[in-house]
């Protein structure tokens, strides 16, 4: 009998430039929130959660509402607005030639900010390059951040790293690197070390949805599961990995939260543009981790409003207005509207806050520019040779001499 020919399937995004934006491939009910089980519930009774969506804002009476004090929400709003203003400013600074490279987290600000605030100062975050809000929410000095972007004489990383690849130990923010996924397992190892030491601290690791395809993602989940590491493993699903839509990472067949099921760990799928839902899900997972109940995988469903980086033009691969049709809206607007509706905030105060943040930012940029923007100032060249090892070996010493320093 003649067998029918096989046919290779290649996923394609629902819309390309010129098409009408569509998100009907995403399965969630905007009117409903996933149930909120007690955090002590065994994983075997949580297996519906990765297919639902944890939501608070816009859902009447959501069980996940963390009932935050107004001043906490206002602080979150402030950090999110600050993140957006900061990023808009330094995206423009790239056009002006003041930084060599930059990446924005526009539309994803709620994730880094809410998690930064919800976790303890001594917990450790193993970030991606798209959670800058973590640092701003923890009050990292703006000027220092800009010095890193400028690779100037006061750059805390001594001119060795690309802009945005920060490292801020005192703010619970692990050293970034350009290679994807390789630090996800560090979060697990760090958490295991904390558990081994009888400590109370937990770790948070981030990857984007594109990076879930890396082997390091599987490795981290396996180790986290096997050793019940006190870690929160976060996937920020912003629908795009540079020009590649999430379907190419596997999103057409399942949710990223559902990847947790096969590892026997709880998986939450959370509205990533909902500050309160992120907060709540983070605390839920943190409670499990702190009680030695092990890891949780959280998928934050969000949308990458900006291009991948200053080197990317998203209009070449997706509809120009796609972000405007994103069903989960804008995280800043949603929290602001919630605060105003509850009588804890006003449009005038928002305007005043934005003006203050704008001035603060301008002052910090001015101060950093006094030191020098990219190419106008750099750390002493001797810094190129430091920290290769704890103590330099003869090669470094000789090569320094060869360069005449």
């Amino acid at each position, binding site marked *: 009998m003649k067998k029918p020919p096989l046919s290779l399937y290649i996923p394609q995004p629902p819309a390309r430039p010129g098409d009408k934006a569509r998100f009907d491939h995403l399965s969630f009910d905007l009117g409903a929130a996933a149930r909120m089980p007690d955090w002590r519930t065994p994983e075997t009774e949580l297996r519906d959660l990765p297919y639902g969506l944890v939501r608070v804002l816009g859902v009447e009476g959501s069980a996940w509402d963390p009932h935050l004090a107004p001043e906490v929400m206002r602080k979150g709003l402030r950090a999110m607005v600050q993140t957006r203003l900061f990023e808009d400013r330094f995206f423009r600074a790239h056009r002006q030639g003041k930084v060599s490279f930059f990446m924005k987290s526009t539309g994803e600000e709620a994730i880094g900010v809410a998690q930064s605030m919800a976790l303890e100062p001594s917990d450790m975050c193993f970030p991606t390059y798209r959670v800058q809000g973590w640092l701003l929410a923890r009050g990292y000095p703006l000027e220092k951040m800009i010095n890193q972007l400028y690779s100037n004489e006061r750059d805390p*990383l001594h001119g060795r790293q690309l802009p945005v690849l920060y490292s801020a130990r005192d703010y619970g923010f692990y*050293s970034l690197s350009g290679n994807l996924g390789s630090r996800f397992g560090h979060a697990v190892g*760090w958490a295991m*070390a904390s558990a081994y*030491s009888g400590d109370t601290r937990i770790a948070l690791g981030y990857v984007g949805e594109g990076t879930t395809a890396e082997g390091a993602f599987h490795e981290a989940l396996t*180790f986290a599961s096997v050793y019940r590491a006190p870690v929160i493993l976060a996937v920020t699903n912003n629908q795009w990995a540079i020009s590649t839509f999430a379907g190419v990472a596997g999103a057409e067949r399942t949710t990223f939260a559902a990847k947790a099921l096969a590892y026997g760990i709880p998986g939450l799928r959370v509205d990533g543009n909902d500050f309160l839902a992120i907060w709540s899900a983070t605390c839920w997972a943190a409670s499990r981790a702190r009680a030695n109940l092990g890891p949780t995988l959280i998928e934050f469903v969000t949308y990458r409003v900006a291009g991948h980086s200053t080197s990317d033009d998203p209009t070449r691969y997706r509809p120009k207005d796609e972000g405007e049709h994103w069903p989960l809206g804008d995280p800043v607007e949603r929290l602001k509207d919630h605060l105003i509706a509850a009588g804890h905030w006003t449009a005038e105060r928002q305007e005043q806050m934005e003006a203050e943040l704008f001035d603060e930012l301008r002052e910090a940029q001015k101060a950093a520019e006094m030191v020098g923007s990219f190419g106008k100032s750099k750390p002493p060249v001797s810094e190129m040779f430091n920290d290769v090892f704890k103590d330099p070996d003869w090669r470094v010493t000789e090569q320094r001499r060869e360069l005449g320093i």
Partner: protein
Amino acid sequence: MNMIQALNSALDVKLADDPRTLVFGEDVGYFGGVFRVTEGLQAKHGTKRCFDTPLSEGGIIATAIGMGVYGLRPVAEIQFADYILPAFDQIVSEAARLRYRSGGEFWAPITIRSPYGGGIFGGQTHSQSPEALFAHVVGIKTVIPSTPYDAKGLLIAAIEEDDPVIFFEPKRLYNGPFDGRHDQALRTWAGLPEAEVPEGHYKIPLGKAAVVREGAEATVLAYGTMVHVAKAGIADSGVDAELIDLRSIVPLDIETVTASVQKTGRCVILHEASRFGGYGAELSALVQERCFWMLKSPIERVCGWDTPYPHAFEWDYFPGPARLARALLKVMENS
């Protein structure tokens, strides 16, 4: 002690004297390791100090780095050096660069132990010598012992080092010295002076080579199993060669190497790994740059061939004493 016992003793000493030390890898815990290097450690120090991992080299090293960042001193085992490659990204992009890229804020004082080298009919994936891959990576140190005494002292030093260290163990030397004369009776370490290993804590500093045999006519640079092959090859050649056991690939003891070649004027480099792009090329370049006016003869490299490590052709591939002796006689032709 044989080399296995010496390595076991080093781990035992560190597990006992530093609660930050952890030992883990595939089959390392209850079973005590496929080469018995971790035998008894779990029973003595507990399952949290010495444990089995999933079969995932990338995961093992990622976990070790995270632990190192926290402040522990993990000693991770990769079952065979041939299988270290799934962890290459972790070693190269993470462990080696962490201190540098974070401006000194983070670092990972990890030790990666791994049996390496051939001469055991291990075929393509149980015989490789990948040290040159790591020598090219800035930010990590690579150490290879050749005797039980060195193995223990170097391993303790590696664990106490604040930089990441790859510790390759020549598995051909685990039970006894091997000089490449595969048709002769096997020897054990019993009764040999290098097998006299103190029970307690001692260190051999990284970056210090050992002059195994003093000589005046040529210098032989070797490490691991090749140190023993070199002894036999030198004896066969009748050349009064100085034999240097490098012990550390990185950092290299450049002073000992150059002092010797400046004295002898001739240099033969011996390693199991294939020749092209091998560590011998770096050694040869350094010797040429630093000893050019003292050289009486071109530098010779005796290495594995530029083929994958074969099974049936073990002794055609393995650079044995006869090949070294020929190279020594060749460098002596120019006098």
